[in-house]
């Protein structure tokens, strides 16, 4: 086993800085043929034993997907070949609630990634998805008893059909964009979370996504419903082996924040740099509800992701923190969208991007204030740090305001690591690499301190890995 991993990385001549780039030799129990048609979708529905409404939903979405032209804006998708992808790879027969029941070879992968260990320490619940299917899902007993639901979405369709059917696809319809349509057609896995009124989930729920197969498409679908006055923090992390050929990750995440609820959704995205990461994330926030996206993008070949908050009723609030780190061969097209659909709603977007070794990071933002939505406030801050002259940073902000009585601020700053800063730190004994890393860590510190401690440590470590060997 150890040999095959080493080979995977070395044969390809790919830089092995990416420490999650190993591939485990797990034989899937089912793998659809390459490419996508109605036959593949029907086969998925049969294997999953899905109700008819979901089959129709998928087939309908597939028709929409076929009609959508290839997305032309954002990043370069010309190399993405939809026919060269496996849309459904099932590594295990069922989702287990006990870690001991997860097949050994899959368990080994997650052990190497430190997942069960993390659960024991500080999480209220953990889900783990391997290729297309969730292999493990569990929640602490106390939360289960008071009605908090944390399941993989496939199981939720069986156990909570009415709740899922009521909200599924209402926040992000199939026709929303090309990749939302694709996800709606072939989605598999993801998390379903329901938090009953007034319940505050103190510790984070975590989902872990792993792509193991080559040319794999992972299309998880997550739906979070925070009932009135409830509170929950959901955290996701993702990695994949380093293959020479492409993989596609295209998730849809829908969140409903009911009156007075508070949801925080944290992502540490660390895909290998052969993965196209094209994700649609959106939340509806009702009266006095608060939605926070904390979105860290360090991996992938191309990420296009703009978490959004629709503030539907007065008092709603949307906060989006975005960190993007684009290194060699990477394009992080990240950003945020906020829609003030009701009066007296507030939003804050904070974006920090770092570009290095020819990497490109773009901030793409949208602030929308509907006519009649009086007394809204929006504050956008974009900071870009460029580490060398080969790297690039762009900002594409759009502001659409249909209401005069509103307060919008937009600040953007681009900085380079200053010679004076480097000299100062080096004069105190730090190497150039240590000094640059310290400056970068300081740059993103305002965001990292918002993360739970374990993730903050992980984030700093990932930054350090990205920075290693960066200075000649």
């Amino acid at each position: 086993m150890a040999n095959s991993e080493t080979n995977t990385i070395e044969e390809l001549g790919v830089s092995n800085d990416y420490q999650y780039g190993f591939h485990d030799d797990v034989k899937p129990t089912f793998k659809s043929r390459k490419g996508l048609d109605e036959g593949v979708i029907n086969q998925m529905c049969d294997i999953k034993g899905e109700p008819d409404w979901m089959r129709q939903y998928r087939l309908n979405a597939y028709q929409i997907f076929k009609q959508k032209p290839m997305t032309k804006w954002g990043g370069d998708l010309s190399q993405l070949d939809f026919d060269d992808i496996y849309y459904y790879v099932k590594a295990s027969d069922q989702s287990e609630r006990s870690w001991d029941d997860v097949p050994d070879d899959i368990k080994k992968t997650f052990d190497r990634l430190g997942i069960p260990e993390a659960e024991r320490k500080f999480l209220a619940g953990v889900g783990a998805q391997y290729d297309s299917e969730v292999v493990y899902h569990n929640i602490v007993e106390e939360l289960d008893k008071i009605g908090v639901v944390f399941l993989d979405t496939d199981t939720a369709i069986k156990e909570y059909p009415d709740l899922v059917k009521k909200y599924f696809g209402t926040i992000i319809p199939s026709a929303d964009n090309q990749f939302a349509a694709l996800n709606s057609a072939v989605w598999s896995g993801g998390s379903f979370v329901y938090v009953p009124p007034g319940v505050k989930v103190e510790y984070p729920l975590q989902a872990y996504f792993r792509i193991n197969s080559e040319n794999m498409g992972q299309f998880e679908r997550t739906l979070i419903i925070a009932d009135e006055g409830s509170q929950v923090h959901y955290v996701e992390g993702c990695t994949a082996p380093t293959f020479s050929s492409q993989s596609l990750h295209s998730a849809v995440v829908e969140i409903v924040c009911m009156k007075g609820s508070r949801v925080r959704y944290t992502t540490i995205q660390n895909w290998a740099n052969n993965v196209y990461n094209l994700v649609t994330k959106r939340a509806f926030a009702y009266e006095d509800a608060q939605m926070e996206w904390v979105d860290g993008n360090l991996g992938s070949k191309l990420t296009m992701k703009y978490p959004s908050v629709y503030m539907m009723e007065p008092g709603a609030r949307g906060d989006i923190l975005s960190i993007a780190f684009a290194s060699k061969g990477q394009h992080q097209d990240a950003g945020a969208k906020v829609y003030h659909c009701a009066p007296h709603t507030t939003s804050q977007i904070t974006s920090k991007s770092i570009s290095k070794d020819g990497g490109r990071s773009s901030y793409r933002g949208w602030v929308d204030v509907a006519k009649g939505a009086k007394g809204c406030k929006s504050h956008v801050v974009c900071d870009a740090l460029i580490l060398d002259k080969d790297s690039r940073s762009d900002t594409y902000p759009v502001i659409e305001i249909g209401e005069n009585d509103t307060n919008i601020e937009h600040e953007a700053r681009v900085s380079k690591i200053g010679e004076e800063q480097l000299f100062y730190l080096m004069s105190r004994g730090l190497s150039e690499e240590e000094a640059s890393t310290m400056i970068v860590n300081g740059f993103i510190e305002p965001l990292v301190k918002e993360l739970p401690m374990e993730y903050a440590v992980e984030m700093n470590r990932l930054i350090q890995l990205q920075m290693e060997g960066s200075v000649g």
Partner: protein
Amino acid sequence: MSTDLMIKDLHISVQGKPIIKGLNLAVKQGEIHALMGPNGSGKSTLANGLMGHPLYDIDSGEVIFSGVDVLELEPNERAKLGLFLAFQYPTAIPGVSLANFLRLAVSAVRGKEGNGSSNDGLIPMREFRRELREKMKQLGVDDSFARRYLNDGFSGGEKKRAEILQLAMLEPKIAILDETDSGLDIDAIRVVGESVNQLIGPELGVLIITHYPRLLDYIRPQFVHILLDGRIVESGGWELTQMLEAEGYDPIREKYGIDEE
């Protein structure tokens, strides 16, 4: 091994313009030297050049420190040999706390192979904190300093005290103080001066670079040099500062036939 700083016939230029034009100076551990000169005489160029700032070009000459020619070394290698520069304008590093920065710096300078270092190559947190707290107390620096972002939003006086705190923690053999008194009021100069005084001893050599003799009221040098147009034109003792205090730089300029810039 000698831990002197020996500067021999040093020439430094900035953007092609010669600034230091053949400077000779020797500073030993335990000695205090003052290098005084008017604006434009090359004081800061010398300080930055000695520490290895990439924008300052060494055209010729030698700088031997601890028996090593340091001119080929990176600034961090010079720091590890025991050279320290207290900056005239310390740079802010937003998001990096003074304590985190200092722990890395102290670990780097003391050597990662040194005893007591933990797995990550850093000196153990507990040991570091104790030492930092002691030094802060000794220098009368407020505890909150440690948590603040390095020089970010610091007042002029706070920046200079942070420099002296770094000096205290890094325990160099030779410290260069580049116009540490500039921009400070008389009370702040006293505080900084007294702080430096506490650190002076047989293990530390100091080169105080200054325009005005004020700081020298608190740190009494044994050797005083006058820098004019990139060269040391006079060397002596305390009497030179007395002379400058009374007459300014004009008589010296006249004597050496150098126009005011």
